[in-house]
Each structure stands twice: as structure tokens, then as C-alpha cells.
């Protein structure tokens, strides 16, 4: 979907570029064999990871990749685990909330919380997968900063956060159609439409 825009992309060493969403990253944990060239996510062993694995069993998977730790958790555990991470593990600073779209997967979205603990000087991420149209509990009551970050994730991906005080678009106009950071949101089509409607000419793109 990106090649038309990129005449200057250097040719790949081995033939055609694969369609973008073929290798979902979160699934790399499940099938590490797919990644032959680089490092693979390894199980993350730490008291914290042990604790949550014991408490929640298969709902939590603790992994580490390039020295960065993350938990892949089941969607149903989301508000509980986030709250516990803040209260028990001192992850008091929510750095970022974002999402990644994998259109070919059954559960299309990875929602990612990027956390930092001032007391431990440690970072970790929490990931969960949700289907298109499914919603996820808001974490505004856990970290106030989640307000705008969740609004942005909603704006860009259309992910609904239940319990958010004012879930509306933040960067795009209210009447905007679609969610731009979804992989099926074509930028060429968007450009042509806009130029046609607003300028009445054919787009040069």
C-alpha cells in the first residue's frame, strides 16, 4: 500500500516487498520461528513477572525483547493489572498509550501501555489484543494523563475506551471520516478525494 508513494525506495535485496501486515509483531512471541534474522522475545523472569504469572496464569505472558520488558495480557484483565502495576509495583507514570493495527489478525489491534516507575527507574509495557469494534476499559482513573492519550488512540484507530470522561477526536476535526492510522486507510485515496471535493480538480498524486 505504500509503494506508489515511494518511487525512491531502494529495491529490496530479495525480490518483492511482502505485504506489510504479514508478520504481526505481537504474534512473534507465539511463533518465534518466523523471525530468522534477529533476536526473538524471550521469557521475562523477574519477581514481578513471576508474581503476575502465578496470580493470573495463562492470561499473562511476560516477555523481554532487546532488554525491554513487557506483559502480554488478556483483555479481560486490563483494568486490574494496570491498577495493580500502579499501586503495588509503583509504575506511577504512564508514558504513553498507543495501538498498532494488524488487519489480517482476528483481533486486529494491539493496545499498548508504556509505563515507567520513578521509584524503580524501570520501564515496562503492557500489551493486549482487541478485535475491531471491541472496547477496552479506560485507564483515566488510574493515570490522569490517559485522557488525551486515549482520545488520540480513539482518533487514530477508532478504539473505544469505556468510561473515558470525554471520548472524542483530538487531532482531527470532529466530522472526519475514518481513522488514519489503520492500515486499511489509504492515503492516496484520501488525498484524491479531498482535492476533488475541495478544489474541483484531479489530484496530481
Amino acid at each position, binding site marked *: 500500500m*505504500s509503494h506508489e*508513494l*515511494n518511487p*525512491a*525506495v*531502494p529495491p*529490496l*535485496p530479495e525480490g518483492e*516487498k*511482502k505485504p*506489510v*501486515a*504479514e*508478520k*504481526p*509483531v505481537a504474534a*512473534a512471541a507465539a511463533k518465534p520461528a*518466523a*523471525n530468522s*534474522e*534477529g*533476536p526473538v*522475545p524471550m521469557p521475562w523472569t523477574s519477581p514481578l513477572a513471576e508474581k503476575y504469572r502465578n496470580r493470573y496464569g495463562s492470561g499473562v505472558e511476560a516477555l523481554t*525483547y*532487546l532488554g*525491554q520488558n513487557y506483559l502480554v495480557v488478556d483483555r479481560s484483565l486490563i483494568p486490574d493489572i494496570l491498577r495493580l502495576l500502579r499501586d503495588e509495583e509503583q509504575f*506511577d*507514570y*504512564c*508514558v*504513553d498509550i*498507543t495501538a*498498532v*493495527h494488524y488487519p489480517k489478525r482476528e483481533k486486529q489491534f494491539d493496545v*499498548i501501555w*508504556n509505563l515507567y516507575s*520513578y521509584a524503580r*527507574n524501570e*520501564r515496562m*509495557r503492557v500489551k493486549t489484543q482487541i478485535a475491531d469494534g471491541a472496547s477496552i476499559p479506560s485507564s483515566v482513573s488510574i*493515570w*490522569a*494523563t490517559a*485522557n*488525551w*492519550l486515549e482520545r488520540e488512540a480513539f482518533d*487514530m484507530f477508532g478504539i473505544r475506551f469505556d468510561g473515558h470522561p470525554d471520548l472524542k*477526536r*483530538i*487531532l*482531527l*476535526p470532529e466530522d472526519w471520516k475514518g481513522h*488514519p*492510522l489503520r492500515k486499511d*486507510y489509504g*492515503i492516496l485515496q484520501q488525498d484524491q478525494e479531498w482535492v476533488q471535493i475541495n478544489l474541483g480538480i484531479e489530484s496530481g498524486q
Partner: protein
Amino acid sequence: MTMTVPAQGHSAKDRPKDEMKETPNEVPNRDLSHSDSHLDLDTPEKPYLDANELIINMGPQHPATHGVLRVILKLDGEKVLGTECVIGYLHRGVEKIGENRTYAMFNPYVDRMDYVSAVSNGLGYCEAVEKLLDVEAPARAKYIRVILAELNRMASHQLWLGTHALDIGAMTPLFYTFRDREEILKIFEKYCGARLTTHAFRIGGCQYETYAGFEKEVKNFLKFVAPKIDEYEELLTTNRIWLQRTKNVGVISAADCVALGVTGPVLRASGKKWDLRKAQPYAAYSEFDFEVPTGENGDTYDRYLVRMAEMRQSLRIIEQAVNGIPEGPIMAKVPKVIKPPVGEIYHSIEAPKGELGFFIVSDGSIQPYRVRVRPPSFVNLQALDLMVRGLLVADVIAVIGTIDIVLGEVDR
């Protein structure tokens, strides 16, 4: 740009009800049950809006909002009851662009987010991709990066100081800071040809070797600028008007900063000693000796003091770096076509405005599958509402200035 909600006049609520009905200018009592009016017809005696309440648009073309920020203010007279930021006027989809460019091609785009500290943006992005590739820039490149990034922090703080003081009514600092910032931009221009959107670094190191006389010029600049910082302080630090406009204005506690994810000088001014250059050192910062200045009260004045002290610390870092700059290559061995393995990485740096993070997901192709920018300005701006409640309209200007936002980064 003033928009008032049609109130019933000053004394509407004092007047008896039947007298109001006879007023010829009164809106006739229509049946609005089928329209989408929000007027509450069941309790007509309740004023639609308190006569003293006023909704005002500040921006998006207001010069004191430093760009295209629109703040809807709810006022009671001059007092701010609440605000809502309307952002996105400068949104150009940087993250979407990132997914449609190769890793190297996206590099210049990050310069255009926080366009007054382009070097920091480039540093954050390049280091994130390097982490993903598992390569490390050579020592010489790291030193050059630190020198340029700290010069850029100076430039960013100088621009902040000049415009912030101008907003509050002091015009002179603007001329002083812009005069001195020019010297930094000249160094940038000589180094890489650009003054603002520098694109100074490459994934794996630096593209350019330093020019002849670079070190001497940087040292001269340090000598030149140290007394200038005193000069700015002479103008402001004990200035009565400055004190009255900034002391106890826009106070935010450290706990609120943490809850709101606020970082950078705003966090430090409220007393939390946290700087990524110390907490999780990147580039060559672990090799230098410098302090992390903090404030106590978390008000606009403390944030001013913290940034002034930070400028001096930047000078210290630059001095150590330029004296100890090692010989050697400036580029690590990176493939011509950058193709990181499948995986994801988060890397963040202490940009002049706070924690600037890049979260990159690679699917093993030449283009990032997802680039997420964690912009400090965007997150810090969220604290505006908390900081200005109960203050006067003029203080809103001071607080917007003191958070130090760049709309190019807020909107991306």
C-alpha cells in the same frame, strides 16, 4: 475572536419573571421539542448561562499561544473557571508518513515536529532505530551528538525565554535571546547546512565530520554566551513586574505532574529531580558531570529559574564534551538499506521540553510498521487546565508560555 453565548443581559435574573416576558426583545417562546435546541424550557427562570459567565476563544490565531493553539476559556468575569484545548490545526500525520517511508527517509520528518529543537528529535529517532538494529554509534559521534543537542537545548530555552517574556510584557529579552541564539544557528548552519530543521544525525552516527574550527567556535560561543545568561537574569530575576506576573502563577505539584505525565523543566520545577540524561543516560551523557536543577514551588517563576539553570548546565556539558571529543569514526557499520529484524523498541530522550519517546514496530521490512512519537509538548499541554483554574485571563498567557509547547509537536 470573542464569542459570547446570548445571555439575557446583566440583570436578567434579578428582574421579576413576568416583566421579562413583556420585554419586546425577548425570544418568543417557541415549541422546540422537535428541534435540537439545548435550551432548557422546563425551567425558564434559570438563566441559560450565568450572566457573568463568558465563553471566550483564545486562538487559534492568538500570537501568545505560540502557534495555532485554540483554548476555549470559561470565564467568570476575569477569572478562569475552566479551559478546553482544541488542537490539531497543524496535524499532518507524521506517524502515518513514517509508515510510508523507509527508516532513513523518515529521519528529516522528525525535525519538523518540535522545530525549535530539531537536533533532539533527530537524536531520539536515530537512537531508537539504532537500538532496534542493535548497533551503537561510535564515541566520536556520540560526543558530537551531545554537543549539538545541548546547543539545541540552549537555543530552545533562549527562544522560550524571549517569547515567554514578550508575552508577559518584557520586550528586551526577546532581542537579547534572539541575538545570542543566532550564534548557535550559525554553528548548526556551518555543520550541516541548515539552521532549524537540521537533520544533523544519521542512523548509526553522524553524516558529517565536524568542520575545521568547529571546536574553537563552540568554545568561543561558550565564552560569549555565559555572561549573556547573566544579562537575561539581570533583566528578569529580580524585576518586580516579572515577579508579580510569575510568582505563584500556574502552580502544579509534583504529584499532579506525575499523574498527568508531565516531564521536563515543568516536572523539575515542582521539585522532582528527574532527568532522563541522569536516570537512563543515552548518547554520552553518563560521561559528563552536571547537575539537575530543580525548583520548589512549581510555579511559573520556578520554571523560569530551572530553565535558566539548565542553560548553564548545558554550557558545562558542552565544555566537557568539546574538550574531550575523541578521535575516530563517526559512523557505525550500518547496512545501506536499513532493515531491522521483526520486533519493537521504545527509546526516549530528555528533549528540552520533556521526555521525547519513539516507539517503533518493525515487521522486518525497510519501512517501519508503526512509528509512535511520544511528544512531550502534547502531554504537558494537558496540564494547562489544572494550572490555570482560578487564575486571570492574563495568567493563561503566562502559563501557556511557561509550559513551553511547540504546536508542531503537539499536533504532529
